[in-house]
C-alpha cells in the first residue's frame, strides 16, 4: 500500500518537511554563526544588519595563536613589507605581534597550550576509564556479584554528583598533595566520572555478546582470561570505541572542575576561552576562531558516533 496517500496525508507530510527544514535552520544558525564569525575581519563581526556575505580571511586564527598589542604608531613601509603574510594581517587589524625582546621570537597566546592540555587530559582519562570500565562491566555481566544492583547504583551515583560538590573537598585534598593545577589532578577527576559512565555503557554492550562464545572457548581449553581477551574483547571493540568517544567528548567539554582545579599550568580550553571575553569590547572573531577549533573534533566524533548516540546518552537503557 506504499505510495498511496490521501491528499490530506500528502499535505501533512509537506508541512512536516517544511517544519523540519525550519527547525534545522534555527538549530544550526548559532553553530553557523560561530563558523562564519571565525573567518570575518574584526569590523564585520559586530555590524547591524549582520554581515552575511564577506570575503573570508584567516586573520582570526593568526590572532588566536599569537600574543598581540595595540599599534601605537603605524609600521613603516619597510617594516610592513618585511613582515610575513600573517603578520601583515595583524598590522591590518591595527595591532602588532608581541615578540621576545632578546630573541625576536613571536610570543604565542595561551590558546595552543590550553588546547594541548585539553588533549592530554581528555585522551588519558578516556583510555583509563574505558579500559577499567570494560573489565568491570565484564565482571558484572558474567559473574554473580552480591548486591549487583546496589553496586551499579553506587557507580552511577558518583557520576550524578554536581561537580562543585565534589570539587570542594577535592580542592582541599589536592592542595595537601600538590595536585592542584596539574594534568594528573584533572585526569583523576575526569577518569572518575567517565569510569562510572563506561561501566554502565559497556555492561550493555557486553551483555549482548552471547555467553556461548566464551563457553565454546573454555571447552576448547582456553582459560577464562584468554577467553576474555581473545573472544570477548574483539566482539566488544565497537562498543569500546563508541564509549571512548563519548568519554572523550565529556572530558573535552568539561568546565567546572577545570575552572576550579586549574589556572595556568594545566588549564584546559573551556575555562580559558570564556576568560578571554573579559570586560570591554571582546574580539569576537578570535573567540569564534578558538571556539570553532575546539568544536571541530566533537563535530567529527558526533558524526562517526551517530548510530550509538541513543544508547550512550541513555546510559545503555535504550538500544536501537
Amino acid at each position, binding site marked *: 500500500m506504499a505510495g498511496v496517500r490521501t491528499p490530506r496525508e500528502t499535505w501533512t507530510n509537506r508541512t512536516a518537511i517544511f517544519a523540519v527544514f525550519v527547525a534545522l535552520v534555527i538549530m544550526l544558525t548559532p553553530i553557523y*554563526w560561530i563558523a562564519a564569525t571565525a573567518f570575518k575581519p574584526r569590523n564585520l563581526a559586530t555590524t547591524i544588519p549582520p554581515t552575511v556575505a564577506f570575503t573570508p580571511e584567516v586573520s582570526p586564527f593568526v590572532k588566536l595563536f599569537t600574543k598581540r598589542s595595540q599599534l601605537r604608531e603605524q609600521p613603516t613601509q619597510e617594516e610592513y613589507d618585511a613582515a610575513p603574510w600573517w603578520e601583515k594581517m595583524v598590522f591590518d587589524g591595527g595591532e602588532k605581534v608581541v615578540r621576545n625582546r632578546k630573541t625576536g621570537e613571536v610570543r604565542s597566546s595561551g590558546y595552543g597550550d590550553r588546547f594541548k592540555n585539553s588533549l592530554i587530559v581528555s585522551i588519558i582519562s578516556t583510555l583509563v576509564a574505558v579500559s577499567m570500565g570494560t573489565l568491570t562491566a565484564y565482571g558484572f555481566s558474567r559473574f554473580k556479584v552480591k548486591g549487583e544492583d546496589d553496586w551499579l547504583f553506587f557507580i552511577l551515583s558518583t557520576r550524578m554528583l554536581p561537580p562543585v560538590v565534589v570539587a570542594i573537598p577535592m580542592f582541599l585534598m589536592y592542595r595537601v598533595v600538590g595536585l592542584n593545577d596539574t594534568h594528573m589532578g584533572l585526569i583523576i577527576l575526569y577518569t*572518575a566520572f567517565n569510569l562510572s559512565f563506561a561501566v554502565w555503557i559497556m555492561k550493555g554492550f557486553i551483555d549482548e555478546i552471547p555467553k556461548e562464545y566464551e563457553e565454546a572457548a573454555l571447552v576448547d581449553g582456553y582459560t577464562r582470561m584468554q577467553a576474555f581477551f581473545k573472544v570477548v574483547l574483539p566482539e566488544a571493540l565497537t562498543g569500546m570505541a563508541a564509549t571512548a568517544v563519548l568519554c572523550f567528548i565529556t572530558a573535552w567539554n568539561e568546565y567546572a572542575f577545570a575552572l576550579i582545579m586549574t589556572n595556568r599550568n594545566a588549564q584546559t580550553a573551556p575555562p580559558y576561552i570564556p576568560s578571554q571575553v573579559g570586560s570591554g569590547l571582546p574580539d569576537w572573531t578570535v573567540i569564534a576562531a578558538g571556539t570553532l577549533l575546539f568544536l571541530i573534533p566533537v563535530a567529527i566524533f558526533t558524526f562517526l558516533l551517530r548510530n550509538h548516540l541513543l544508547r550512550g546518552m541513555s546510559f545503555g537503557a535504550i538500544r536501537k
Partner: protein
Amino acid sequence: MASDVMTKLDPKSKAAAKGFSDLTIRNLFIIPTIVFLIVFNIFPLLYSLGYSFTDFRASTNNPAKFVGLQNYRDLLSDPFIWKNFSITAKYVLISVTGQVVVGFGLAMLLNRTLPLKGLITTLLLLPMMLSMAVVGLFWKLLYDPNFGIINYFLGLGKFEWLADPDVALWAIAIVDIWMWAPFVMLLSLAGLSAVPKHLYEAAEIDRAGSLYTFFRITLPMVAPILMIAIIFRTMEAFKTFDLAYVLSSQPTTELIAIRLYKMAFQEWQTGMSSAFAYIVLIMVVAITNIYVKYLNKVKAR
C-alpha cells in the same frame, strides 16, 4: 553444564586449574574500579562532611573550629539560599518543559519517511554534543542588544536579554533548550519507532481522530522513555553551572550550583559550603534514585 561454568565462582573450578579462577578474575576486574571511585568520590565527600560541622575557611590558616550543626541551621534559615532554590526550581521548570515540548515536537516531525533523515537527525543532535561553557559563551554575541542576530531577526530592537534581571534566566534557559531539546528528541524518536504499527492501523479502522490517536496511543507508548528523558534532564538542569556562569552574573540567575561555587571559592566559606554541598547532594541522590528505578523499569520491558 555450560551455564554452571559461567556462574560458578569456585576457586577449584575447571577453568581455575589453568590460569586464574573465575572468582579471582571477577575481583580483579571489579575491585579496582570500586576502590578508585571510593577513593576519589566517596572519601572526599566524607572529608567534607567533617568540614561541614566546622567554621573552616580555606583562605586562612586558622584551624577549623567545631560548630556542630550551626552551618546547617544557618543555611536552612537563610532566606537568600531559599531564593537560590526557587530560582533553580524556576529554571528547571522552564528549561525542562521547553526541552520536552521542542524535543518531542521535533521527534513527531521526524517520525516519518523523510529524504536524508539520517543526516538531518545527526545535524539536529549536534548542539547537545558541544561544550556548554564554550558555545554558551558565544550566545552572548547572539543575544547582544546592539548587534546580536537574535534581536535583528526577531525585530526586537535593542531588547536586553542578559542585562535585564527579569529576562536573563529565560535567556539562559533558551540556550539550554537549544542544546538539550535534541536529547529529548533522540529518546522520543526511539520511543515512537517502538510503537507497534498495528495500533495505528486499528485506530484508523475505527476512524479515530488524530488527537485521540495521539493521546490514547502515541503518548502512553512513549511515556516511559519520555519520563527517562525528563528525569535525566531535571537532574542535569538542577546542577546547571557552566551555562549560567558564563552568560550572566545577575543575582536573579544565581542557581544553586553558582551560589555554592561562590560560597566555596570566592567567599572561601569552606565549612559552610561543605554543609551546603551536602544538602544539594542529598537532593541529587534522591533524584538519581528515582531515575535508576525508571531505567530498570524501561530496561525490563
